[in-house]
């Protein structure tokens, strides 16, 4: 990587705006993600977190503004972007072992059926990188949620991305696995220098490793270090109604966010699009984040 490339933001948003019908999810969003930077994307359901990722993946056009990935306009299926979805347990009867799930990251998008010669060695390296060597041959459906998420990180690393998009990758994992998976992503973004956009409804598991926070609410946003953004006065202003940020035992709890209840349904129907975190029962509580 040359110096110029090293300094170039892996993601650049300029005046990015996304509207569905009359509803504005966010507008005028300016964001530069530096190589190796870890940004948590926070906000209530329906605030457009997942839509932001879809825009960067080239699946939704911006209503206005510009989005560049490594200096190039977004395209669908950009191999420079790695994507880690929410954990969903593989069904029994999924014809894949751990190594095959990772292998899809290498050649899953190419037509044909016969693997290339170098694939096995590359998969072995990726499995080792995410600490999954011990269960390389195990059927995916018998692995725990934490183990499956490690494999998905390995799968996302396969194309050597400059930007990793993670959509609630810790949801429904226990605390130990939440820590393990976020530390895994943290280690690799430092070693490999890719930027991370990490959508989450709970910032606490990643609080120690977050560089900046992008908080989306009510069509507006705040970007900054966690201590600058996650404050009562900042979020109160952002939401336009009283919000308390409580810090207790090293955890951050946000109380009083007004829009968690109705917004996701609006987005769901207006846009005809699915927000994967809509159905997370934790989000229905007043105490989110």
């Amino acid at each position, binding site marked *: 990587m040359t110096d110029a490339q090293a300094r170039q933001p892996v993601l650049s948003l300029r005046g990015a705006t996304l509207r569905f019908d009359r509803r504005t999810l966010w507008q005028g969003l300016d964001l530069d993600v530096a190589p190796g930077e870890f940004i948590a994307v926070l906000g209530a359901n329906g605030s457009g977190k997942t839509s932001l990722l879809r825009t960067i993946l080239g699946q939704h056009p911006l209503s206005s503004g510009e989005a560049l990935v490594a200096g190039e306009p977004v395209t669908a299926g950009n191999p420079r972007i790695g994507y880690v979805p929410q954990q969903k347990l593989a069904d029994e009867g*999924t014809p894949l072992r751990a190594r095959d799930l990772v292998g899809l990251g290498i050649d899953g998008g190419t037509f044909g*059926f016969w693997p290339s010669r170098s694939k096995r060695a590359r998969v072995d390296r990726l499995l080792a990188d995410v600490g999954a060597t011990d269960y390389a041959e195990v059927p995916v459906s018998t692995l725990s949620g934490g183990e499956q998420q490690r494999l998905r990180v390995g799968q996302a690393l396969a194309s050597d991305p400059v930007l990793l998009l993670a959509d609630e990758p810790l949801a429904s994992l226990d605390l130990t696995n939440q820590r393990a998976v976020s530390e895994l992503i943290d280690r690799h973004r430092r070693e490999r220098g890719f930027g991370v956009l990490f959508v989450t409804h709970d910032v606490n598991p990643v609080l120690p490793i977050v560089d900046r926070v992008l908080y989306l609410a009510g069509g507006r946003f705040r970007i900054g270090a966690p201590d600058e953004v996650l404050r009562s006065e900042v979020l109160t202003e952002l939401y336009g109604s009283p919000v308390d940020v409580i810090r207790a035992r090293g955890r951050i709890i946000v109380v009083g966010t007004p829009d968690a209840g109705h917004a996701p349904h609006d987005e769901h129907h207006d846009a005809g699009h699915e927000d994967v975190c809509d159905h997370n029962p934790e989000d229905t509580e007043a105490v989110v984040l």
Partner: protein
Amino acid sequence: MLHDSGVWGQIFDFSDYGQLLVLLRNSIIAGAVLGLIGGLIGVFVMSRDMAFAVHGISELSFAGASAGLLLGIGVVQGSIVGSLVAALLIGALGARARERNSITAVLMPFGLGLGILCLAIYSGRSANKFGLLTGQIVAIDDPQVGWLLAIAVIVLIGLGIVWRPLTFASIDADVAAARGVPVRGLSIVFMLLLGLTVAVSVQIVGALLVLSILVTPAAAALRVSASPLVVPVLSVVFGVVSVVGGILLALGGSVPISPYVTTISFAIYIVCRAIGAARARRGISGRRMPEPALSAGALS
């Protein structure tokens, strides 16, 4: 245990077996080909959770075949048209599993009713009527085998091309889409290939029992392996053994072919389930464990 010919021999007359075999050359070729493509596409039917949709397509295929018989277009041709229409409808209207199930449930009885109507009006040989629902063994002539082989080649080539991205899209559509896999396009291609395979199956095992070729072999294979190479290979072996074995057994009797086919494929499934369960009980998971940490309690 599957070739317990002592029991079968008492029930059926296996004299003149050699001569019968020559007569049924076409059926055996068609059966082997069906086992092959059914076993392969079954793997995707399982990973895309489409067993019920397969049943729905086969009923519409039956309707098409009956209409083909009635109108003199040809059974195979009619069945292909019925299958493809059903496959595309279910594919287009049922993107998600729940929608797909309800649209299948709506289409299926309609197809069956349409088929029964056509057969009721049809004044030709009645053996053909029953055969479309429960399978036929003698009715496959040379042009029909030609059709079946041509369809099988199309399905094989099609599957070969889309195999890997279709696997990706079937396992994890979101991530596949993020990687630029044309998830929707692949879904349509798959439904077309599935429709063609169902049309072939209806000719041999009959509309009611298509699942025994398109689902049971793959489901059995998935009980004993998760390797993306071993599962399709086993599934094909199970499929071919079921269909060809069923034809060979049915030779001696006057009963339709389908009970033999379905019984063999069911028996294979039971055996595979037992093997899978025995492995799970003995804690064989393929997981490498650090030796000292391995204790009896850890294997529960």
